[in-house]
């Protein structure tokens, strides 16, 4: 091969093709029109979108909504059945990669996001149910260049192997330390019991949580 390919440094999405694709043409165009023609779309945009008509009118089919993600209003077209994690990963124009879809049943924690200040499973919340609420993902907590204390501690304590559970743990623990700045090991375990790891990184995750708490204090 003559041309040297340039993959992203450490797996970050340098490849511009990874980051963006407009789905809006499809969602706002053909499908909406088709749905409306079939009389399926009696929808009124919900509260945070333009309010009009009966607020209780059922919505169906692709519907444009606004989600408040990591401090920014993001327009996205979703169906009623679209989960929050799918809206973030599959439907946003600039999709997020932090929250992962692993079990799709509220039993593993990889999709953990912070909704109005509380951790929830993104796979178990409908996107439409997150309208008007504050959504924070792991990307909203820090960046590789400017990580928060928990992210930094995860690197220092090797709180990850394959890394697929990491976003969920980091999100959970970052939120936890806000209200519990000085947790015990047992409290960390109790708080993280809804986050599962298959590589077996747990002891390093616990160490990272405790180290981050310590770092936050100094």
């Amino acid at each position, binding site marked *: 091969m003559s041309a040297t390919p340039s993959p992203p*440094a450490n797996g970050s999405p340098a490849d511009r093709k990874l980051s963006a694709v407009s789905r809006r043409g499809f969602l706002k165009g053909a*499908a909406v029109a088709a749905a409306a023609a079939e009389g399926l779309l009696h929808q009124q945009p919900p509260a945070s979108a333009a309010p009009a008509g009966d607020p209780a009118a059922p919505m169906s089919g692709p519907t444009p909504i606004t989600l408040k993600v990591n401090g920014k209003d993001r327009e996205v077209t979703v169906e009623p059945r679209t989960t929050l994690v799918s809206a973030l990963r599959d439907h946003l124009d600039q999709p997020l990669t932090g929250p992962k879809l692993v*079990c799709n049943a509220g039993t593993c924690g990889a999709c953990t996001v912070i909704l109005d200040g509380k951790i929830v499973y993104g796979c178990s919340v409908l996107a439409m149910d997150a309208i008007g609420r504050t959504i924070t993902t792991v990307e909203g*907590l820090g960046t590789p260049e400017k990580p928060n204390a928990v992210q930094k501690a995860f690197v220092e304590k090797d709180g990850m192997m*394959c890394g697929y559970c990491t976003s969920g743990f980091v999100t959970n623990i970052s939120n936890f330390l806000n209200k519990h700045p000085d947790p015990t090991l047992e409290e960390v375990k109790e708080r993280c019991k809804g986050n599962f790891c298959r590589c077996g990184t747990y002891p390093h995750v616990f160490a990272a949580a405790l180290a981050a708490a310590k770092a936050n204090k100094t």
Partner: protein
Amino acid sequence: MPTTQPGKKTILVPKIVNGVPSGEEEIVVDDTDAPAWGPKDKHRLINTYLPRADGPHKATGTAVYTHDVKVPNMAYACFVTSPHAHARIKSVNKAAAEEVPGVLAVVPFPNLEEVRFEGQPVAAVAAKTLEAAEEAAHAVAIEWEQLPFVVTAEDAMKPGAPAAVNGGGGGRGGFRGGGNRGGNPEQVLDALKSCDVTVEATYTSVIMHHCCLETHSVVCDYSGGDSATVYCSTQGCNSIATDAARELGLPASKIAGIVYNMGGGFGSKFGIGIVGQWACRLSKKLSQPVKLVLTRREEFLGAGNGPGAIQTFKAGATKDGKLVAVHCIQHALPGIGRSNIAAQPYQYHAEHTYREQTTVNTNEDSSVAMRAPGHPQACFAMESLMDELAEKLGMDPVEFRKKNVPDPAWVRQLDAGAKAIGWNRNKTPGKSANGSSLVRGMGCGIGAWGGGGRGGCVATVNIGQDGSVTVQNASQDLGTGTRTYVRAIVAEELGLDYNDVLEEIGDSRFTNGVASGGSTTAASLAPAVKDAAYNARTEMANRVAPHLGADPSAVLFADRQIAGNGKALPWKQACAFLPSGGLSVRGEWKPGLSGNGAHGASFAEVEVDMETGHVRVVKMAHVQDGGLILNRMGAESQINGGMIQSLGMALYEGRVMDSNLGVMVNPAFNDYKLPGCLEIPELIPIIDDGDERNQVIGLAEPANIPGSGAIANAVANAIGVRIRELPITPDKILNALAQQKNV
């Protein structure tokens, strides 16, 4: 003897097929001096505690996995799978599926008439959204003719049971013929007569699942034309292009195979698999990129599994603690596949041994490699047997083991592990000192793994005129820390800081990598990287020495400087002497830099509630050798991970089948129970520095082997009754205690 060219030599290296060690093969390598690792205790980066190179991206959610890939105009695909364990497809009606808005293609698999396990894919669907693809897959109407099936070993071993696979059965139920044998059974049975103690017992372990958090997934970025990029969650980045080329009808050289990051493999992900085949086929059909991701249920049902085993022993020892005779019938339970359980008496030496292995097929997905294929199963059974013998001998289990291990490494490790756990068994199993229902116990076990390096890896080090350094290789990082040591080896060799070097891996266009199976990646790749870094250093020395007025052989690389003749040039300044294209140097795997044969010993302490059957693992220690350790932090993570996976095997995990319906009843994380935070004991990972081999030896798999046996032994020591079937769940403990009371 094959004739070798001058300057070449032929050596034997381990052969690994899809993650399973399959003997050895001869390869030809350069017969030249290789660079040496240098003294183990003199390293600046390797063999120290290094933070993971990909850590900052993984911790911030910006590391890209195949599941995260989204390319313009990408369609989403889903499989339609069989709800039956064994059935014939009578008809497929696509009409309703094709009417789902947004559907692009509904493709029943050609020439597929019969399915042999629940969850077997039978058709693929593509649509503009994931929601539409799922809905359409669900709307494909298939008329089935159900056929006789067996989904449990118990049913399969009954005379006259239906054959799970073609050529199975033959009057022997689900047995597949041609079991392999070793030893003389009569001799063993004779030898048993002269033993002071004997044990006859059957140990059972069930089919387990890899449970990679990232399910099997492929994005085929192809829109027609003459090239494609294929993102795949695989342990073998190397083969993506070749595999995809077959499906796309393109030359492999026009396909980029990408594995930037992957969310776990554990042996279940080689090649592009059926997921990749159909992503490519649909992409070709639609001239549009296609993403195909297995659902968690599909992953459980059809993405491979680790085999179960039923192992029946007759074994005996003499009162001086010598294991004399072991007779073992091993049934491997690999679904419709084939599988090997490691031969008994596993790592122990006995003068008289007989082993016979048979496969019992069932209508379940094929077993594939799963972290140390066939070893945890063999180890659990043998270690249980060893403790049962030790008990009859009235001998301490550690001492009994030390008398029967063929390699002194285990003696050293058993001593180290016993010390770390505070070896102190329950002298009155089933009773606690204070009369409470909580009883404690301890157990141990040993394991071994071949591993070893293989030829074929080629690494490239590029040095820019601006001083930038990259190291490239096609191999992937499963989470095992490949990126980290690749970077560290180069930085150390060139006297640079860890962060001065950028590793670029997981792209099939880079120089030859190795598939991650059999714990061979580090032993195959690290030597190639070392060789490339060594060559780069030599080349840099040659270029820079004249500017220093020094002899190239006397030039030193340290502290981000190149020094000689009493002068020193900062690295960047030295690189300015390079041509504008910089320097690109390759290196190959060299045999002297890697070794094989890893040994480990696990210890466990448990606390069991005799009234509820709850087992709490209090503490585990695992001692593991691995020759020259590339990253001690990563190695400890691996050892911890191995202990935790063995804990899952011992106490929680297992596929559960309904024999009436032929279905798996627990294909979800709610019901297939992985250990979580509250199940994690105090863990003591111990790198065995008594191992003097100055060679890279993989240790990912060995760390997973002896833990389940150690825990099973600890439970038996705690409660005074032995549970011979994994996982050891509360119901089994309560039943066993009730039975004991009734006897």
